[in-house]
């Protein structure tokens, strides 16, 4: 169990929120939404690997 993963996701979330607010205040709505999308994709890429690890661990231990 790694705390760094949770902190990483929270950090990306706070960063993306800040970037979104700055960009939308500056009147660049479309870039703000792109930043949001990019953040979600980055976090999903990290999470998919973790889900894969969990599934293979369960498959090994419970003998699927």
């Amino acid at each position: 169990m790694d705390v760094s993963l949770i902190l990483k996701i929270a950090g990306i979330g706070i960063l993306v929120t800040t970037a979104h607010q700055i960009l939308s205040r500056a009147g660049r709505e479309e870039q703000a939404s792109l930043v949001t999308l990019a953040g979600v994709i980055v976090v999903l890429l990290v999470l998919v690997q973790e889900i894969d690890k969990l599934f293979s661990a369960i498959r090994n231990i419970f003998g699927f």
Partner: protein
Amino acid sequence: MTFVKVIGIALAGMILSVLLRKMREEYSVMITLALSIGLISAAIAMILPLIEYIRTLSENTGFDTYLDIMLKACAIGLLTTFAAEISRDAGESAIASKIEMVGKCALLMSALPVMKTLIEAAKGFIS
């Protein structure tokens, strides 16, 4: 990893998730997902010696196939609850109930061989 440490990490992650729910909904869900994966991994790592012990106990008793089926059912239940609860937390209770339905079907199908054996035994008693 000790129990207290795991609980502390879970509480910290929960607070982060609540903090981010106000700002961005999707990251809250993702933190929940990451935290759930970590907690399930910790729980499995904790229970692993017990599973190994039960396996060694059942080695020469002819209980092997049933133990495999039971462990498979445990895994199906674990994964189904994991996915369904996260979907429900994210506000998608329709998807959660469908995930549970799929899990129940998989569970029934994995229990089918045991049912077959039982019915064969009953047939043997009757005839």
